[in-house]
């Protein structure tokens, strides 16, 4: 590739840029040309101003360039976001007892090759403990951890085919960027020449090739994050473990890194296991999400499924915002269950566990609520007590009764109501869910539940 670039520099240096960019060329030639565009832009100044076309061509070339360098950096591992049916990680009845308490009890889950799976839970839910058990930093009390078909339960951390990105990056402060990234390859005694190319190619993937000789402390948070990810990925792990890697970054950078992670996952095809307490992050990144509470897996499904059919009020409250109303089943008919809440009757899709007279928690997403003047069709009527304008979305809180305030999200600015205005409330029964109340009442510490359930109706956002 180097040779190619040199040839390009000699032969094509005089050619006007827009013309050259439209010529059909091999990816290698195009790459060479792309480099040339940058160089010429400096030397010739305004004489050959790169046109929009040439830059777009360059962007495409960049993508192609990344593919080829990735193959070199990561040994041409099979690519693509195709999630295969092969189980990469199997957790079988894993439990973890700490000296004082039981952190994880009877935890089982499977992660397919190439999947992006997130463990979502509040702090103390055991999600990090599970990650650390897979990495080998934490012993397993009972149960088995299978990675790529091999029982790794007793395997020391340094012999497991997984690599981690730590919450605070854990980049070695005594080494520069290059040596940090090269650390794993040097342990494996890869020839120094190979290390050089692979480290530079890997750094190029995240746009940090110019920072190779920098000290870690000279990097910004986002750059450190990228180095930490590259340091793990360069070892071609079967699974990349990420422990709240973005929690130290500010919002804008976090969004940027989310996209970067998604891109890396898609392009490398490595299985990602991600841990976070941020449900939005989990939703936007993952193929599947495992929701954890108190060391137990509440539900393990795709983001869409978790959102549309959560298995419990706790999951409903954790995944997105929801209104929770208590009531009891008064009738079961034609695929629908009729629920009597303290203020109105409503129907909801029937579920298998619905029996007459059972107490239920009804969950209605804020965006399922309709406001207007519905007359007899209205479920209830209330007063707007709070209003938050959030750009494309408007949040409204409607007090239906002293102990019941509903949260409503609506698109569009046309449907706005002033504070104190009376309004009818209605929702499509198919967009509500009724959970039979088991012995486990929804924990009020979960976000999204507070403020709607029970008597704390006057709470605002």
């Amino acid at each position, binding site marked *: 590739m180097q040779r190619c670039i040199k040839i390009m520099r000699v032969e094509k240096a005089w050619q006007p840029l827009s013309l050259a960019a439209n010529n059909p060329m091999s990816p290698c030639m195009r790459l060479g040309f792309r480099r040339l565009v940058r160089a010429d832009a400096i030397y010739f100044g305004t004489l050959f101003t790169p046109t929009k076309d040439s830059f777009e061509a360059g962007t495409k070339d960049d993508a192609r360039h990344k593919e080829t360098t990735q193959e070199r950096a990561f040994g041409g591992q099979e690519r693509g976001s195709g999630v295969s049916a092969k189980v990469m990680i199997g957790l079988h009845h894993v439990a973890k007892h700490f000296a004082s308490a039981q952190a994880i009890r009877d935890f089982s889950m499977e992660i397919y090759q190439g999947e992006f799976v997130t463990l979502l839970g509040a702090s103390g839910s055991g999600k990090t403990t599970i990650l650390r058990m897979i990495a080998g930093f934490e012993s397993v009390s009972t149960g088995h951890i299978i990675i790529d078909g091999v029982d790794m339960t007793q395997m020391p*951390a340094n012999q497991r085919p997984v690599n981690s990105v730590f919450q605070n990056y*854990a980049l070695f402060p005594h080494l520069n960027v290059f040596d940090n990234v090269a650390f794993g390859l040097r342990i*494996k005694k890869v020839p120094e020449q190979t290390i050089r190319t692979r480290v530079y190619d890997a750094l190029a993937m995240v746009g940090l090739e110019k920072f190779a000789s920098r000290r870690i402390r000279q990097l910004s948070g986002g750059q450190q994050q990228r180095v930490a990810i590259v340091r793990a990925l360069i070892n071609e792990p079967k699974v990349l473990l990420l422990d709240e890697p973005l929690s130290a970054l500010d919002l804008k950078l976090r969004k940027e890194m989310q996209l970067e992670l998604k891109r890396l996952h898609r392009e490398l095809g490595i299985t990602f296991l991600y841990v976070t307490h941020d449900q939005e992050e989990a939703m936007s990144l993952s193929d599947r999400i495992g929701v954890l509470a108190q060391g137990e897996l509440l539900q393990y499904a795709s983001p869409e499924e978790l959102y549309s059919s959560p298995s419990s009020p706790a999951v409903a409250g954790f995944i997105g915002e929801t209104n929770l109303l208590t009531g009891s089943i008064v009738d079961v008919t034609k695929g629908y269950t009729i629920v009597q809440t303290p203020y109105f009757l409503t129907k909801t899709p029937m579920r298998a566990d619905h029996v007459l007279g059972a107490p239920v928690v009804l969950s209605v997403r804020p965006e399922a609520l309709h406001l207007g003047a519905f007359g007899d069709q209205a479920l209830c009527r209330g007063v707007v007590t709070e209003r938050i304008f959030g750009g494309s979305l408007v949040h409204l809180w409607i007090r239906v009764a002293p102990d019941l305030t509903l949260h409503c999200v609506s698109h569009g600015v046309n449907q706005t109501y002033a504070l104190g205005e009376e309004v009818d409330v209605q929702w499509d029964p198919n967009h509500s869910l009724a959970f039979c109340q088991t012995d486990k009442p929804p924990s009020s510490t979960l976000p999204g539940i507070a403020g709607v359930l029970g008597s704390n109706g006057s709470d605002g956002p």
Partner: protein
Amino acid sequence: MVLFFAIPNLYMLFISFMQVGGYGGIVYHFTLANYGLLFHWVEFKVIADSLLFSFLVTIFCLVVGYPFAYIIATSSPKRKIVLLFLVIVPFWTSSLIRTFAMMFLIATDGFINSVLLSLHLIHQPLNMLYTMGATYVGQFYSMLPYMILPLYASLQGIMDHPEYMEAAKDLGAGAAKTFWKVVAPLSIPGIATGSLLVFIPTLGTFFIPLLMGGGGVVLVGNFIENQFLAADNWPFGAAASAVVIVITLLLIGLSSRYMNNAFLEEER
């Protein structure tokens, strides 16, 4: 500070450039002869010997102190307190008194010889006191805590951030490689501080060579003491001190580069 530190030192520097009187005392007349004398073979050897002595004592302290500090840093909190207590206890006694205690232990008719004799392991008392070896042991013993404590502080800082060691293991390093590639380099500030704290007092020591080594061991500390007190040649002694101080300052400057790279602190 000015009164007790700067003025005496500047005065000493001043008289190191003066001539000595025929019967001792100082003649206020500028000369470089005192420094010239230091390059004579005997005096030069004293300084070279002292540097070697200090270097070796520092190495011994490092080799013995590092594992000890590592054990303390990785111990359970309860055991840590006991071990740290054991390191600090010697500070409660004057090092002069501890040196006398050691003399008693290794003297010809001392404790060790009497025990060995009564056990019939030896038939003649071993000659341990008043040797170079005794001087090394005495200096090593009195300096060891100064090495252990900074090393411990440095290693404890690393143990408080287990993610560095976990990252090394995660990247495939076994216990040995984790130590040599991560723990040891990160503890360099502790090594530098401890070495300095051992090296500098050892370079200036005079009573341990005097008591443990007898008259046979002359280090630069004894030499300076002799010039001031016995030979009454203050300018020459002052010149020798000035050289020691310059060496010391050079070493501090050198090692402060490593100490300033306090790797862990700058992280947070």
